[in-house]
């Protein structure tokens, strides 16, 4: 093993974290420096992420011991197939939204460009840290790094953003504390914090009340962080009032990474047996997830603000991911992971388009979208593609993840959940077609006094630095759809956890 290969995992965290500290120092005099430095770091992250994934696919999971200390004494980084997928998703979304954010941030909060990029990288450092670490406490620290960076990013949004962030902070801290409690409980009975070590020790003591309590704390804590209904209260306000670039970054990444934590805890640290037989968590979670799917979709229909609608749609998508996970079957697991990737890309695209509409036309109310496609044809096309994917129309990516989820539900003969997924697709169609209808078929609504028509406002297509990321994400939705067979076979199936039914 050469030294170059050895350092890859830690670079994933170090690049964004180091750059986050470099940016304010270098850009203190010249604000223009912040963007190129951040972009270079993000590009480097994409390269390292793909290189790591290539090695994981070729040679199997990579272990890295911090400072050469072997676990359980030192902190270990562990990258398996699931981590590799998440790292790629984070790096790509971070890079693409990074390009997009240049114009968007300059128009929404021009005096905060330098701290924005610094915190942006800190957020990515926290998120990649969560997915590469193999240590429970280390995961908590990264969870809090990413959350704190997330609070700061959301708070630079519009006037109402600080209050929404404050609520998110209070509830998010409670979630993180519950997670920490779970870690501490496990430590008190096993004396180790390393995930592989825990997985080895725990099966003997599944009957212990401490272990069961710890499991309950994990599930509740992570459910708060991933905004699983009915603990989703913070999400809609936070996403709505954040700057557009921040919504486009946070919506695809933060809840997904929390979903990753849940998968890690349920399938790696504990065995699926615990969650299937010893504790009835699975039943509760699957019904909660089904409720989340329906609730999110129904509330999204009644929203008139596009960002708020997308936020509620996120609540419902989190439900899909958890539903797939609770099936604890191969198809359900594959559907869950696939939906994490697909939803990341399509929701990133949708929020980016919403940001472009706000940037060019200043509209965020769906009723004001009349004939926007004539002014911004490519942006509208990207929205349509991503929306079709959200509904689940082949050959877009969304179809394949829903297909696997339905397969999982059929396999385990849970017909109710098949119905829930179908019904939710219809509801998705209802609210996305409402937007598409306004955009493509309806003329601009009647103007009130003092308002101008779109022609008078001289609305143009989004600038290239925003248009290219949007189109790249929209193309990504299609590519993920066509490549889903390959993704499932090379990236997901080799990493299937043991003990699935």
């Amino acid at each position, binding site marked *: 093993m050469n030294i170059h290969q050895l350092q890859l995992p830690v670079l994933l965290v170090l690049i964004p974290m180091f750059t986050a500290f470099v940016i304010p120092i270098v850009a203190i005099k010249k604000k223009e420096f912040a963007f190129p430095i951040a972009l270079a770091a993000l590009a480097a992250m994409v390269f390292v992420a793909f290189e790591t994934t290539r090695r994981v696919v070729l040679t199997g999971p990579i272990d890295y011991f911090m400072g050469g200390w072997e676990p359980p004494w030192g902190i270990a980084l562990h990258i398996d197939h699931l981590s590799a997928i998440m790292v790629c998703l984070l790096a790509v979304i971070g890079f693409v939204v990074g390009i997009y954010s240049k114009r968007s941030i300059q128009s929404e909060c021009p005096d905060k460009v330098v701290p924005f990029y610094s915190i942006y990288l800190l957020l990515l450092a926290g998120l990649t840290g969560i997915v590469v670490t193999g240590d429970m*406490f280390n995961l908590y620290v990264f969870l*809090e790094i990413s959350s*704190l960076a997330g609070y700061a990013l959301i708070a630079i949004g519009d006037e109402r953003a*600080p209050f929404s962030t*404050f609520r998110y*902070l209070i509830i998010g801290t409670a979630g993180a504390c519950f997670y920490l409690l779970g870690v501490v409980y496990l*430590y008190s009975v096993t004396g180790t914090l390393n995930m592989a070590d825990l997985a080895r020790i725990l099966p003997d003591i599944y009957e212990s009340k401490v272990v069961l309590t710890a499991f309950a704390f994990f599930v509740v804590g992570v459910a708060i962080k991933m905004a699983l209904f009915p603990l989703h209260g913070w999400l809609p306000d936070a996403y709505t009032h954040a700057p557009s670039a921040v919504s486009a970054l946070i919506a695809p990444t933060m809840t997904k990474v929390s979903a990753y934590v849940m998968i890690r805890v349920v399938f790696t640290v504990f065995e699926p047996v615990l969650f299937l037989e010893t504790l009835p968590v699975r039943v509760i979670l699957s019904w909660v997830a089904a409720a989340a799917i329906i609730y999110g979709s129904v509330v999204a229909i009644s929203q008139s603000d596009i960002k708020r609608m997308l936020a509620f749609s996120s609540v419902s998508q989190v439900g899909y991911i958890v539903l797939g996970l609770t099936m604890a079957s191969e198809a359900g697991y594959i559907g869950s992971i696939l939906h994490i990737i697909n939803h990341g890309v399509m929701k990133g695209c949708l929020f980016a388009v919403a940001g472009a509409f706000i940037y060019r036309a200043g509209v965020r109310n769906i009723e004001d979208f009349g004939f926007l496609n004539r002014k911004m044809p490519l942006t509208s096309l990207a929205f349509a593609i991503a929306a079709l994917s959200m509904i689940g129309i082949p050959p877009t990516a969304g179809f394949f993840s829903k297909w696997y989820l339905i397969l999982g539900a059929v396999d385990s003969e849970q017909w109710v959940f098949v119905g829930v997924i179908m019904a939710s697709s219809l509801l998705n169609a209802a609210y996305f077609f409402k937007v598409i209808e306004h955009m493509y078929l309806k003329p601009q609504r009647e103007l009130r006094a003092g308002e101008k028509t779109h022609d008078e406002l001289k609305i143009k297509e989004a600038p290239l630095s925003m248009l290219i990321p949007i189109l790249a994400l929209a193309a990504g939705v299609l590519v993920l759809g066509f490549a889903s067979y390959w993704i499932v076979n090379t990236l997901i199936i080799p990493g299937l956890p043991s003990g699935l039914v």
Partner: protein
Amino acid sequence: MEFLLGHINVFVYVILMMVGFYAMLAKKNLVKKVIGMNVFQWSLILFVVSLGSKRGANIPIVQGFHHGHTEGLVIEAAKYINPLPHVLMLTAIVVGVATTSVALALMLRIYKTYGTLEEDEILKKLK
């Protein structure tokens, strides 16, 4: 009673934590919410610190150890407290301080915008 005394740290932490949780969720004033959040975090930290300590044990520095002279040195684990929970909580304290400072900064912005820190008054102004 013996059970209660034997697990006094657990009872204290649960009571403190519930006090903090109540303040976080039920209090209308944002400052009180942050104080509640702190009580919540600190109860957890106290609990973990109490897990690491034991009666009659010393700080984890090996006694009777001189440079290079390790012969005949017997280390009895029971004589030393477990330092790991304390070290973990050092990190958790840092996280708690960072969270509090972000919350205070947010409150500053909220106060500048709405001129109040009472949640119900802010909600009224939002409508």
